[in-house]
């Protein structure tokens, strides 16, 4: 047994790249997650309509601003608020009717509507909690004694009522929160592992040597390696989706065509990324590690579980370098928010960009020599 242990350790020591991965990967991820993973969102974009424009409504807005939690910007109508959230430009909204001050002073408890994007579970909860603080005494205190000369006529416990409206997922179904993203995670895992070993295996089994002698061009080699896996992963995508529809009442997409385009492009991103991994790795073991190195931060930094708004600005650009981020954005848009294509175009464009970069990278990295 000692001989066996010694042999295994010696083998590990001879693979410096693997040691690098074992040591560097946890270190990088730990620091990254330590810095990036926060539950408290910052500067959540909030579209608001304030028809009252009074001292009182300013109090509400200021309280939302000051914690650094929300970043408010004005839009023209109630419909616009929902549109902004649907498009993904805002995650929250605030509507204050023109009669606010009037009703407040008459102690008729005016209603203020707070809109929340219901597609982000943790964000929704956090925002609801945060918005509730606007009815705290510190804010409402000034409403009771707004006019030092006037008698305090406010009787109600709270001077105004904050109605929270969870958009797109009014019942806050967990399956709606997570399932669309889970499909992407599964496809990412399948695709990266599937193609991650494809070239390394040929290298290890020494079939690559025989293959390189043939007159096949670099492009044909890469495309020939990609296409079958793209097809398989695409079928897998729909298989997983079908199970999701069958078992968990996953909503139907706003457009089947757009969903198909998403599936195709996303699968192509992951398969080509897998191939790129395979070209960089020297052993199948290394390929697996690199794949995990990509999968874990993808899940945690993409806004799939933790809101993007909770990731500090300084590291958020990493989130935008993760293809899965755009997948999450689009799939939620298509299945739950019914987002318009125009508002998803940049995300589609980003995914397509990844395909181009990864495929070109693969062709450039691939050498027709051993």
């Amino acid at each position, binding site marked *: 047994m000692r001989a066996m242990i010694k042999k295994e350790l010696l083998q590990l020591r001879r693979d410096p790249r693997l040691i690098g991965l074992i040591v560097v990967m946890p270190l990088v991820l730990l620091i990254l997650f330590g810095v990036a993973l926060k539950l408290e969102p910052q500067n959540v974009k909030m579209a608001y309509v304030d028809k009252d424009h009074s001292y009182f409504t300013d109090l509400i807005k200021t309280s939302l601003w000051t914690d650094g939690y929300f970043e408010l910007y004005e839009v023209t109508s109630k419909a616009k608020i929902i549109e902004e959230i649907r498009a993904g430009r805002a995650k929250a909204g605030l509507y204050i009717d023109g009669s606010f001050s009037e009703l407040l002073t008459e102690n008729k408890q005016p209603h203020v509507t707070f809109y929340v994007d219901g597609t982000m579970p943790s964000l929704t909860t956090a925002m609801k909690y945060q918005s509730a603080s606007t009815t705290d005494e510190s804010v409402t205190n000034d409403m009771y004694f707004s006019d030092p000369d006037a008698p305090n006529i406010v009787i109600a416990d709270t001077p105004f009522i904050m109605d929270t409206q969870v958009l797109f997922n009014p019942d806050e179904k967990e399956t709606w929160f997570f399932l669309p993203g889970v499909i992407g995670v599964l496809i990412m895992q399948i695709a990266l592992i599937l193609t991650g070993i494809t070239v390394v295996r040929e290298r290890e089994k*020494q079939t690559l*040597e*025989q293959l390189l*002698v043939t*007159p096949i061009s670099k492009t044909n080699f890469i495309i020939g390696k990609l296409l079958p896996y793209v097809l398989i992963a695409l079928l897998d995508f729909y298989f997983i989706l079908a199970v999701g529809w069958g078992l968990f009442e996953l909503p139907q997409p706003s457009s089947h065509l757009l969903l198909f385009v998403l599936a195709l492009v996303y699968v192509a991103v992951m398969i080509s990324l897998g191939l790129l991994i395979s070209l960089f790795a020297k052993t199948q073991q290394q390929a697996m590690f690199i794949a995990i190195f990509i999968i874990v931060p993808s899940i945690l930094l993409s806004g799939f579980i933790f809101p993007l708004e909770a990731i500090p600005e300084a590291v958020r650009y990493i989130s935008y370098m993760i293809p899965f981020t755009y997948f999450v954005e689009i799939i939620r848009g298509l299945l739950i928010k019914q987002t318009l294509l125009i508002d998803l175009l940049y995300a589609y464009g980003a995914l397509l960009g990844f395909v181009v970069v990864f495929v070109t990278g693969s062709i450039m990295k691939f050498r027709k020599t*051993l």
Partner: protein
Amino acid sequence: MIHAAGLTKCFNGHTAVNAISLDIAKGQIFGLLGPNAAGKTTTIRMLCGIIEADAGEILIDEMRVAQAKMGFGYVAQSFGQYEELSVWENLQFYAQMYGVNDEQRLHLLLQRYALEPFKDQMAGALSGGYQRRLALACALAHDPKILFLDEPTAGIDPVTRKLLWDDFYQLSAQRKTLFVTTHYMEEAQRCHQLAFMAAGNMIATGTPDTIKEALGEVKVYTTQTPYLPALHHVLRESEGIVLINQFGTELRVIVKPEVTLTSLENIINDVIDQPTPLQISEPNLEDVFIALTQDKAVTA
């Protein structure tokens, strides 16, 4: 048909192949000989274009390697076919990589290498000998003019080895050029042209007959004796001894011309009571091979 000049390859500062040159005519069976780590595989891989040479020029059929790929086939030292594909699927795959779809031709290849009965068997399940046949069939699928074979008979039984060599002669008769690396002497004997490599250098070239001249002026004596360590020791210590080679009960001693029969006899008589008389012989390829490589090792 195959031309290389000044071919050099270094790995991590170690020169694996040092400025070798060769010219091989059409229809020849060219044998590249050398001990392990002499640089044979590196050379054949450079010629096939799967390792980039650091320096030197290669022309295959008057073309650069990348342009000449349709014109040659290659059988690597290790089994490079797909284990999880059947014999037929492997053959078809390699044919199609060269744009060949002629099934008739592939069937003939299967017959030629007695692979027809194993057509649907997975390549991984074949015995070593049949894997080698499959590799050859795959390399020939596109009917190349040149065949590069890296130790094609290593680990192959003598019967199959003979069959393969019969086949190589047939291919040569069809005006195909064969480039074979080997360290089997009886195979070297079968080649039309030979080149000896040691420690990355080309140290001798010629036909199996003329290459013996590379040893220079030597005399070969043989005697019948079992292996005696003491005798070997004494001989090694003596002046003018080029090589001592024991074949079973035959001892071959290759000496420089100045060593006389009597002086050698005297050395042997000191160790053995009643030695069988020394016979004068000719150097064989193995003598040349070992003498040249050990020479190289000494000077290097």
